[in-house]
Structure formats: C-alpha cells, structure tokens
C-alpha cells in the first residue's frame, strides 16, 4: 500500500551510472591513444595527474574536501530517507460547512479503521487494512485484504464493491475518486480471536 521512490531511484541511478560510465570509458579512450590528436594532455603517454601533490598542498584543499563531504552527506542521507515507504494519508477530514458555527473534524485513520473493520466482517477475509488518501472532497481509498486460499479473489472484490464501499460513501458523504484493492492470500481460515455476541 505504501508508496516507494521508484521514479526517483531510477532517475538518479541512471545519472550516476552515466557519469561513471563516461569517466571510465573516457579514461580508457585516452589510454588507448585515440584522443591524442585533440589535446597534448590527452596523449597516451602524458601524465594527467601531474601536480596532484601540489593541489593537495593548497591551503583551500581541506575546506574544499569538507564542503564536498557535506554535500555528499546531504545527498546520501536524503536519498536514504526517501527509501522509507510513505503512507501519504489524507490530512484531518473536515465535515462542517460554515466554520463560524463550529468545525467538525475527524482524523483519516478513524474512518479508514472503520472501513477496514467492515471488510474484515466479510466471509473468507482474515484481515484487512485501509488507507484514505486525498481529502474529504476528493477521497481515494486503498485496501489491503488478506483472503483465505479457498476463496475466490474476484468474489471478495465484488462483495467489497457491492457492500463495503456504499457504506463507506454513506458515512463520508462523498463518492470516492478511486478505489484500490490489494489481495494477499493466506492459509489461515480463522479470523483473529473475535466473537460476536448479539
């Protein structure tokens, strides 16, 4: 259910890969002598790193290294953090029309917990989780439903569509813009310890 950084990862991996590829191939081309005609420094026998010790001894070198290190840390950490799956849940839902008479607020998990509970009452469903995205006026629902292996996934989807969704829309007061259902299959046949007594 949670969102991963697929696009971001692929984009940066491509960029970094390209840079490495160009550097590596470039060096090999120079080493092979093919680039000798372009510039004397690119001649096969030239020493490209001449003056390395001199550069190292420059007074600004340590500062430059610290700056580069800081940039790398910033980039590396933010990229790592971005790998954490995100919920992107809806913010507090607002049900009031005129704030001057008073606001009516409800946190999104209160609603999605109720929907998940409803789904769990369906036959063959062993567990369910729900997530509301968007806002109260443009709500999107995502469900993750664990279904017993003997059941037909399609039947559970139909039951959700016919029974669960209309109730959710009745409570929310607004139709969903989109609904996603992710089915996982378990071998369990019993729901968690709950007994309904009328």
């Amino acid at each position, binding site marked *: 259910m949670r969102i991963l950084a697929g696009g971001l990862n692929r984009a940066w991996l491509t960029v970094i890969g390209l840079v490495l590829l160009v550097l590596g191939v470039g060096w090999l081309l120079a080493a092979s002598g093919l680039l000798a005609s372009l510039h004397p420094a690119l001649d096969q026998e030239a020493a490209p790193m001449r003056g390395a010790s001199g550069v190292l001894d420059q007074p600004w070198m340590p500062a430059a290294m610290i700056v580069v290190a800081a940039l790398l840390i910033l980039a590396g950490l933010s990229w790592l953090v971005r790998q954490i799956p995100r919920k992107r849940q809806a913010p507090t839902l607002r049900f*009031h029309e005129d704030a001057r008479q*008073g606001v009516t607020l409800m946190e999104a998990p209160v609603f999605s917990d109720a929907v998940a509970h*409803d789904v769990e009452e369906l036959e063959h469903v062993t567990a369910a989780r729900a997530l509301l995205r968007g806002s109260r006026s443009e709500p999107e629902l995502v469900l993750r439903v664990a279904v017993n292996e003997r059941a037909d996934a399609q039947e559970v989807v139909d039951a959700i569509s016919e029974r669960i969704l209309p109730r*959710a829309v009745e409570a929310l007061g607004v139709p969903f813009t989109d609904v996603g259902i992710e089915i996982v299959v378990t071998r369990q046949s019993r729901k968690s310890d709950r007994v309904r007594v009328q």
Partner: protein
Amino acid sequence: MFDASTGGPGGGEHPPREPDGPASSSHRGHLVLAEKVVEKIAAQCASEITEVGGTGGGFLGMGRQNDPEARPKVSVELTGAIATLSIELGVRYPASIARVTQQVREELGRRVTELAGVQVRQIDIRVGYLHGGSPAEERTLL
C-alpha cells in the same frame, strides 16, 4: 428554575461578602461552576441523539475506551452569556457523519440555550471514533 449565575439550585450558604466584579474570586468561582453545569447538560443532550456515542477514561488519547453508551466529552467556555462548546464524540458507522454532526450542533445549540439560558455561538466537534452498527445490523455473508 435554573439560574446560571449562582451555580446551584436556590438558597444554601453564601460565600463571605467580597467586592463584586469580573475579577472577584466569587465571580470566577461561579463562572467555573456554570461552565461545568453547561458541560453536563450538553453531554446529556448529545448522548440522547441516537447515533452518537461518547468516550471515557484513557490519557492523551491513548487507551480511551470508546463507549457508545457513554456521554460525549464536552468542554465549555463561557464568556458572559455566550457559550462556545467543544465536543469529542463517536458516531455510528455508516451513518452520514456530516448529517449527524450537524444535527448535534443544531439540537445542542437549541437545548443548551433553553436549559442553561446561555447563547450558544459555536460548537466544535471532533469525531474520535466510528462504532459499528445498531443491534439490528445484519451479518454480512458472501
């Protein structure tokens, strides 16, 4: 007959005479007492709306037991004869939350004004939970 400014029915003992005015402790004491009374009235009215439930116990929102039979938690601020209310309640699922809360707002405003003699200007509602179904709810089967 109920009088908001004395905080209790009729006679009994009066606190020792002090200079009157908004800052005097007797006035403040009366104000706090009046707020609590309005809170009780409001909670009672809210719980009488069939699709509303209350909360009880717990600390900082954790461990709070959602109890459809209990009275909702109300807090009132009285400024003069104007009251602003803030309620935390539960609503039956799948009743329309917008409709039920608006109903609470209207009825509560009316009844509190009737019973406590204060004008209710604003009622903020927080829906803390949704409880499933009346006793007559059918089982869902595939």
